[in-house]
């Protein structure tokens, strides 16, 4: 590793806050994209399931 | 009937309609005049400061005035259902849309450019830049009209199209703004102003060739709601 210890890695000679902030926000945004896609998937499946129940209910009468 | 006569007929009607209703061509001009005279009140009356900012100010305000004018380009025809007749013509849509947008430029962009020397003197623009300012605006506002017409065609069927039009079209206006104001600045600094003007002319040729295709397609989509 280029840095002697974790403390130096965190400090990065003063540039640490900028670097870690950038990577943190990037991680947050990328994870948000994945969760959003999961959420849309769940909603869509819920709609489809409701449509399926309606269809089954119609078929019985 | 040849295409050119049809184009001339479309152009004639739009000019007649616009000239009969003064507001259509006077509003962008008044907007241009008023907003340009706001800047000295905001920035301060010093000559040197204004002279440096004048090209940018005039070009940005001309761009906004041109964009405001394009919103009404197809909306009037959409509301009174004459746009349908345009779309149902056996002739290709390309020349009709070209004539219509050119007519719109005659009513909005041209008077703006001819008025620009007056604004330039108000904003203390050095005299070397006046001629180039007018030429750059003549070319630039034509390109802005064609790009704005694409946005107008896309949003004509929407109720609140005005604001959305600006969001769609402003990014596409940026190259015209860059080369327009650069031409005037280099004329003032005594540098070569022909290259940026040449680029503006090239952008105009590209817009003349390609924009009507997008405008026609967008109109057919908007009417097809």
């Amino acid at each position, binding site marked *: *590793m*280029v*840095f002697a210890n974790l403390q130096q*890695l965190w400090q*990065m*000679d*003063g*540039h*640490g806050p*900028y*670097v870690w*902030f*950038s*990577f943190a*926000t*990037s991680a947050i*945004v*990328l994870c*948000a*994209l*994945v969760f*959003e*896609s*999961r959420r*849309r*998937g769940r*909603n*869509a*499946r819920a*709609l*489809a*399931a409701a*449509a*399926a129940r309606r*269809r089954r209910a119609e078929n019985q009468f | 009937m040849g295409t050119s006569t049809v184009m001339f007929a479309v152009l004639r009607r739009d000019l007649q309609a616009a000239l009969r209703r003064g507001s259509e061509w006077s509003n962008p001009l008044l907007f241009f005049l008023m907003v340009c005279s706001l800047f000295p009140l905001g920035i301060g009356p010093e000559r040197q400061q204004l002279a440096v900012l004048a090209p940018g100010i005039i070009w940005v305000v001309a761009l906004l005035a041109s964009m405001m004018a394009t919103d009404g380009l197809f909306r009037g025809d959409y509301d009174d259902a004459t746009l349908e007749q345009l779309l149902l013509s056996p002739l290709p849509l390309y020349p009709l849309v070209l004539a219509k947008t050119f007519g719109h430029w005659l009513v909005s962009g041209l008077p703006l450019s001819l008025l620009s020397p007056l604004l330039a003197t108000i904003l203390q623009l050095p005299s070397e830049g006046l001629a180039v300012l007018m030429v750059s605006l003549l070319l630039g506002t034509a390109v802005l009209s064609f790009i704005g017409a*694409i946005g107008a065609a*896309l*949003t004509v*069927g*929407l109720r*609140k199209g005005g604001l*959305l039009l600006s*969001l*769609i079209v402003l*990014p*596409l206006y*940026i*190259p015209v703004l*860059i*080369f327009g104001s*650069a031409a005037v600045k280099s004329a003032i600094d005594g540098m070569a102003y022909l290259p940026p003007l040449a*680029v503006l002319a090239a*952008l105009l040729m590209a817009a003349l060739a390609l924009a009507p295709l*997008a405008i026609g*397609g*967008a109109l057919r*989509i*908007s009417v*097809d*709601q």
Partner: protein
Amino acid sequence: MANWQWFHKWGSPRWFYQFSGRLLPWLAIPALLLLVGGCVWGLAFVPADFKQGNSFRIIYIHVPAAAVAMGGYMLMATAAAVHLIWRMKLAAIVMKSAAPIGAALTFLALLTGAVWGKPTWGTWWVWDARITSVLILFFLYLGLIALHQAFENRDAAARACAVLAIVGAVNIPIIYWSVEWWYSLHQPASIKFVGESTIHPTMLRPLMATLSGMYLFFGWVLLLFVRAEIIEREKNTRWVQALVSGK
């Protein structure tokens, strides 16, 4: 018509749903490995840049985000052309789903670019050619998303956005070139914002890792968005309902 068979088959949402289902793991795992591995490699195992110090490490997230955001726009323009020419519903879904992802990545590129400017230039916002172009790309994305939401009817929205996406894609090279020219006009002698070629090869390798990781990530999330949209649009069909109740 036989040779067009695969094209229409490929365009059917049902076939695409199954095909993409098998593809998901092959995108997700390498994407996460490359992204996380590349970042760790760039953060801790690469020497600092002698001029800029450690702040250059932001490049490992800034450049991939900007590059993939641009690639995403071009993908949208291609899907738009396919939708306008062949009226393929799937292309409309791909275009609609790619817009938010591209916008998010462009925002990320802007944010990391601004944060990078602070230690390097001393100000939060630098009117540098690359950052300005990314800002304009962000406006183009917002314009597309706003236009799509303005239409009540989904089909009209898709076709209108397709026209705008193609017009935007034609304009992007002109915008990027004019911003470069504008930037060089005002600061001819200034150092260029660190371009890939100028940095040392050992610094370059992690960038290749995160860049390819970001492309794979984009593909993965795009497929997730598209699959969700397919389920939502085809919710009244038998195959979707069987699929859903079968689960």
